[in-house]
């Protein structure tokens, strides 16, 4: 197996993880904000919405990724027109990553000291100011940490997606390592994945640390 193939695998993994995580970031933060602010004592208290949204998020969180992926095949075909390849994997990956990340971001937002919200109200902040100037900046280090975890988890999930024909490093490891017993390729993929995860984790930790002024 040539270098090109391996390189293509890296690119595919990057693409699957990158796109799905980016969408999860864009959708997950508003979702987390709604979950926190609509909760009991929140600034936009709405118990019914909060419960419904919470149940929805939990539903997707409780389905193992492999099963979710298979179950979503008709939906994936509807969205991207195919059930094979990188873009077909992006759909279930995004649907798994969004509630996952939203829950982690929710925890960080919830940890923002209530005194800060009270101070913001006392200084004449409107509710949207509180979200923008207090909740999000104060929770940012935690959100960055949560996003790092999401990225690593999505690398894990993308390998599973590779096994059912999505491409990427998982696909290579499955085809060469499992089906052809090529332990050299297997080892190379493992090394690449370890490096990838290490770089993401280190970068995420560094960023979270730099943002944390506490």
């Amino acid at each position: 197996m040539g270098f090109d193939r391996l390189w293509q695998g890296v690119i595919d993994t990057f693409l699957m993880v990158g796109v799905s995580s980016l969408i999860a970031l864009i959708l997950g933060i508003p979702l987390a904000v709604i979950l926190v602010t609509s909760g009991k004592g929140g600034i936009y208290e709405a118990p019914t919405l909060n419960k419904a949204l919470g149940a929805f998020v939990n539903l997707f969180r409780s389905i193992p990724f492999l099963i979710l992926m298979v179950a979503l095949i008709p939906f994936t075909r509807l969205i991207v027109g195919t059930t094979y390849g990188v873009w077909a994997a992006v759909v279930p990956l995004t649907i798994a990553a969004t509630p996952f990340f939203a829950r982690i971001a929710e925890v960080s937002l919830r940890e923002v000291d209530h005194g800060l919200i009270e101070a913001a109200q006392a200084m004449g902040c409107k509710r949207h100011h509180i979200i923008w100037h207090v909740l999000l900046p104060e929770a940012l280090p935690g959100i960055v940490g949560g996003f790092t975890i999401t990225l690593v988890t999505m690398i894990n999930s993308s390998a599973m997606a590779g096994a059912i024909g999505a491409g990427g490093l998982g696909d290579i490891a499955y085809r060469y390592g499992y089906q052809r017993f090529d332990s050299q390729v297997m080892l190379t993929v493992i090394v690449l994945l370890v490096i990838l995860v290490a770089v993401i984790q280190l970068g995420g930790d560094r960023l979270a640390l730099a943002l944390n002024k506490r």
Partner: protein
Amino acid sequence: MNVAIARERLEQPQPSANHTELHPELSHAHVRFIGIGKTYDGRQGPVEALKGIDLAIQRGEIFGIIGRSGAGKSSLIRTINRLEQPSSGRILIDQVDIAGFNEDQLVALRRKIGMIFQHFNLMSAKTVWQNVELPLKVAGVPKLQREQKVRELLELVGLQDKHTAYPAQLSGGQKQRVGIARALVHDPAILLCDEATSALDPETTQSILGLLREINQRLGLTIILITHEMAVIRDICHRVVVLEQGRVVEQGQVWQVFGDPQHEVSKTLLAPLQDTLPEALQGRITAQPLSAQSSVILRLRFTGGQEPDLGALFSALGGQVRLLHGGVEHIQGHALGQLLLSVTSTSLGADELRKRAKQWAQHVEVVGYGI
């Protein structure tokens, strides 16, 4: 010297709908509480945090609210800027009832009422400058004006060289100064202080209290503070109310309440500040005279007015008078304190000595007899 002190304590106003018309002198109050009640839903049913609070806070005064924890102080101060919604009663600020305010009106009101907190509540992700600037930013004040105002306030609180620091890099006193600058950035008419010095050491407390006093005098701000520390009330307040289980149990000028507390709670809160019998003396005093020559131990308490005239006092008592313990402090220009005297008299009994001393001090009691 006239012992009877003119009592000018405010009468407890009765809650009524047309209250302001009935009491014209109260209608000019800066902040009026009329029958304020607050009920929370606790685990064991409803909890009444405030019960029928009636108060009038005048423009430009430093008004203290003291009580033990759980007395309702926090709830009460938070009703002024509606961080807490009262369950019953009305609050008038500049004669305007704030009960029906919508979000926009509340935001406008809160910009005229600054607030500082026990734990400072500064944004940890923002620098000192950004923290002070935030209230202006959300109000849409143009950048140039913002810069000018923030600079001015950081100068007022003495932190102009710390503007790039983050709160975590500051000491407690510096954090509270940032809190004060932030609270004053909209030129409010009222400053609410929620246990503002309770997390600070005594020295820093003094410097923060000094700053608050200066702000009160220079800017003419009405300051309303809650505390559980009597010393804070003594050091800066003009008037004080004592809160217990959601009710006002005592109120008046600080020197009056300090000199002569009426309610049990006030006495308990004041106890750490008041001189009790020193331990060294306790062993030398008995409840009954051991012999006819035993000296009489008198405790004289001064609760306002001029410093005691010792010469006149001693000659009125006659015999041999020893000063065992005592001191005088000044609150709002009134001398408050107590003297513990040992009087050895051949002719006068304890009761007669007490009566004579009563001419010179507001309260006299016979503590016991010397050994």
